[in-house]
C-alpha cells in the first residue's frame, strides 16, 4: 500500500519533471509558427517567426521592414522646417513628441532658444501626446488579453485629448506645430479651461482602467512574472522609457537631462517598479499617465506670458556642426543625431527611435516562453511599427 503510494508519487514527480524539460523527456515534433505581419497584436506589421516545441518557444525572430519609409534618407533632401512633417509619422500616436527633439537639435546647432512661453506650451503638448499615446496602450492591453471593454473607454477618452491637440495645432495626429525658435501659434482661447476638464476625465479613466484591468485576477496571472527583463540586460539592449523604469532603473530624461523644456518648473515623480515583468511595464505606464496629467495641470497654472517665437532668420540655415538631442517620448528615448554642413537642410540625420531598441530584445526575451505569453509580452513592451521601421 505504502509502496504503491510511493510509486505513484514518484511517477507523478517524474511526469512533472518531464513537463518541465519538454525537450528531453517528451519528444515533440517542432513547429514553426508565423505571427503576423497582419496580426492585431503587432500594432502594424511586425512579423514574428517563432520555432515552437509544444507550447514553448525555442527561438523567435522578429522581422521588420514592412513599413520602412526611409525617413533618414528623405531628411537629406528636405529643409529643416520640412523635416518635422516627416518625423510626425514615426510614432503616429504621439506625433508632437517626435518633433521636439529634432527641433531642439536644430536650435542647439543654431544657438537659438525658444522663449519661455513656447517652452511651456511645448511641454504641455508633449505631455498631451504622451497621454493620448499611453491611453490607447492601456485600452489595447485589455484586448490582447481578451478583455474587450477597456479599449472602448480608451478610444472615448483619447478623443478628448486629441480634440485638445487639434484645437491647439490644427492636426489630430500630425500637428507639425513646432518651429525652430518656437511654435507656429499661441494656444487658442478656452484651451486652459478645457484642458483642466479633460485632465480630470483622464484621471477618472486611469482609475477605471486600474479597477477593470490591474485589479483583475486574470490580468495579473497573465502578466505577473512573465517576460522578466533584468536591469543590466535592459541597459545593454538600450531599452528606454517605461520599459526601463519597470526594470527598476530610476532614469527619466525629462528629469535627468537639462533641456529647454519646462519639466524642471513643475513638481512630479518618476515612476519605477522593481519587478521588470509585463505587469510592471503596464503599471508604470498607467502611473505615468497620472503624473502627466499632473504636469499638464501645473503648467497650465504657471505658463508665463510673452512671445512664442524667438528671433530667427526667415530662411533658416543651420551652421556647421553635429548635435545629439534625445527626449523621453511616450515610447522611450527618442533622439536625433543631426549633422549639418551649413546648408538649408541637414546633411545626415540618424533617428534613434525607442521601439527599435525596445523590440531588439525580443529574440532574447521570447526564448522559452509559452505561446500565449508572446502576445502579452509584445503588448507590454509597447511598440509602434512606425517607430521601429522609420
Amino acid at each position, binding site marked *: 500500500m505504502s509502496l504503491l503510494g510511493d510509486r505513484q508519487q514518484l511517477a507523478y514527480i517524474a511526469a512533472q519533471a518531464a513537463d518541465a524539460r519538454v525537450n528531453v523527456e517528451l519528444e515533440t515534433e517542432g513547429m514553426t509558427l508565423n505571427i503576423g505581419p497582419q496580426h492585431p497584436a503587432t500594432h502594424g506589421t511586425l512579423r514574428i517567426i517563432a520555432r515552437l516545441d509544444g507550447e514553448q518557444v525555442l527561438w523567435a525572430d522578429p522581422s521588420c521592414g514592412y513599413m520602412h519609409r526611409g525617413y533618414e534618407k528623405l531628411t537629406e533632401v528636405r529643409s529643416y522646417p520640412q523635416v518635422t512633417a516627416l518625423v510626425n509619422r514615426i510614432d503616429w500616436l504621439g506625433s508632437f513628441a517626435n518633433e521636439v527633439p529634432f527641433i531642439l537639435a536644430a536650435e542647439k546647432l543654431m544657438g537659438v532658444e525658444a522663449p519661455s512661453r513656447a517652452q511651456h506650451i511645448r511641454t504641455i503638448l508633449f505631455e498631451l501626446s504622451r497621454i493620448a499615446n499611453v491611453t490607447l496602450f492601456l485600452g489595447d492591453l485589455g484586448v490582447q488579453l481578451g478583455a474587450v471593454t477597456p479599449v472602448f473607454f480608451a478610444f472615448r477618452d483619447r478623443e478628448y485629448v486629441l480634440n485638445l491637440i487639434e484645437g491647439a495645432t490644427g492636426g489630430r495626429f500630425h500637428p507639425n506645430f513646432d518651429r525652430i525658435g518656437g511654435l507656429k501659434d499661441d494656444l487658442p482661447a478656452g484651451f486652459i479651461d478645457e484642458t483642466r476638464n479633460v485632465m480630470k476625465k483622464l484621471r477618472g479613466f486611469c482609475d477605471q482602467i486600474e479597477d477593470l484591468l490591474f485589479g483583475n485576477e486574470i490580468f495579473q496571472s497573465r502578466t505577473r512574472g512573465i517576460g522578466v527583463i533584468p536591469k543590466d540586460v535592459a541597459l545593454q539592449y538600450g*531599452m528606454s522609457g517605461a520599459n526601463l523604469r519597470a526594470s527598476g532603473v530610476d532614469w527619466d530624461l525629462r528629469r535627468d537631462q537639462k533641456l529647454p523644456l519646462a519639466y524642471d518648473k513643475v513638481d512630479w515623480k518618476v515612476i519605477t517598479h522593481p519587478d521588470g515583468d509585463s505587469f510592471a511595464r503596464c503599471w508604470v505606464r498607467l502611473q505615468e499617465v497620472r503624473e502627466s496629467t499632473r504636469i499638464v495641470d501645473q503648467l497650465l497654472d504657471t505658463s508665463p506670458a510673452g512671445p512664442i517665437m524667438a528671433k530667427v532668420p526667415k530662411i533658416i540655415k543651420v551652421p556647421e556642426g553635429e548635435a*545629439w538631442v534625445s527626449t523621453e517620448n511616450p515610447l522611450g528615448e527618442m533622439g536625433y543625431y543631426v549633422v549639418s554642413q551649413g546648408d538649408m537642410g541637414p546633411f545626415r540625420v540618424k533617428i534613434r527611435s525607442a521601439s527599435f531598441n525596445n523590440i531588439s530584445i525580443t529574440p532574447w526575451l521570447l526564448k522559452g516562453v509559452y505561446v500565449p505569453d508572446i502576445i502579452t509580452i509584445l503588448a507590454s513592451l509597447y511598440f509602434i511599427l512606425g517607430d521601429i521601421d522609420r
Partner: protein
Amino acid sequence: MSSTTDTPTETPRDDVRDAEIARVCAALGSAVVDSLVKPNDDMWIRVTADAWRSTGETLKSLGYTYFGFISAIDWLPSPYGRGEDDPTAPPVERSMVIKQGYAGGDTRFQVIARLVQPFTTLGINIKVDVDDSLMAIDSWSQVFAGANWHERETHEMFGIGFNGHPDLRNMYLPTDFEGHPMRKDFPLLARMVKPWPGIVDVEPLPGDDSEEEGDAS
C-alpha cells in the same frame, strides 16, 4: 550685484566633461585619434579601427553601460544635391570635396556609436574610420547585445561589414535588394523623375509681418 564684471568668460568651460574625456582617453591610451568636448553639450572621440571592439569593452567597464545607437555617416557630398533640380536639365557641377565633422576623419565612411552613463546622462559619441578597401570593422554585438540590430541596419544601408556579427541579414530591405540606400551616391528615385516642389519654404513665420511680400493675410 552685477555679474558682468565677475569673470571674462570668452569660452564656456565644462569641468565635468573635461575630466570625463581625460579619464576616457587615459583608459583607451593610443586608441584615441582625436577627441572633442563641446562645453555643456556633448563629447566626441575618434578611435582607430583596430581598437574599435576593445573601445566598446573599455567604455563599458568605465560605466558607459547604456547602449544608445550605432550608425554610420557617408561624408561624400551627394552628387545629386538636394534633388531640387529639374531632372530634364543637364546635371549641375557640384563640389565633391569631403568635409569631415567633429573629431575629424580620413575616410568617406565613418561608423558612429553612442554610449551613455546611466543616471548621469553623460554620453559619448564614438567615431571610427572605415577603410574604403576593407569596408568592415569589428562587431560590438558581443559587447552590447543591442548592437546586433543596429549593425544589421548599418550593414544593409551603408554596406559596412561587421566582423564577428552572428547574423548580418537584411533588416528592412528584401534579400535580393541591390545597393545601399543610405549611401550618398544612391539616388533617391522619386526626386530623379520629378522636381521637388517643396524645396522653397514659403510659410511666413508668426509675428513676422514686416517682411511679408504683398500677401494679404
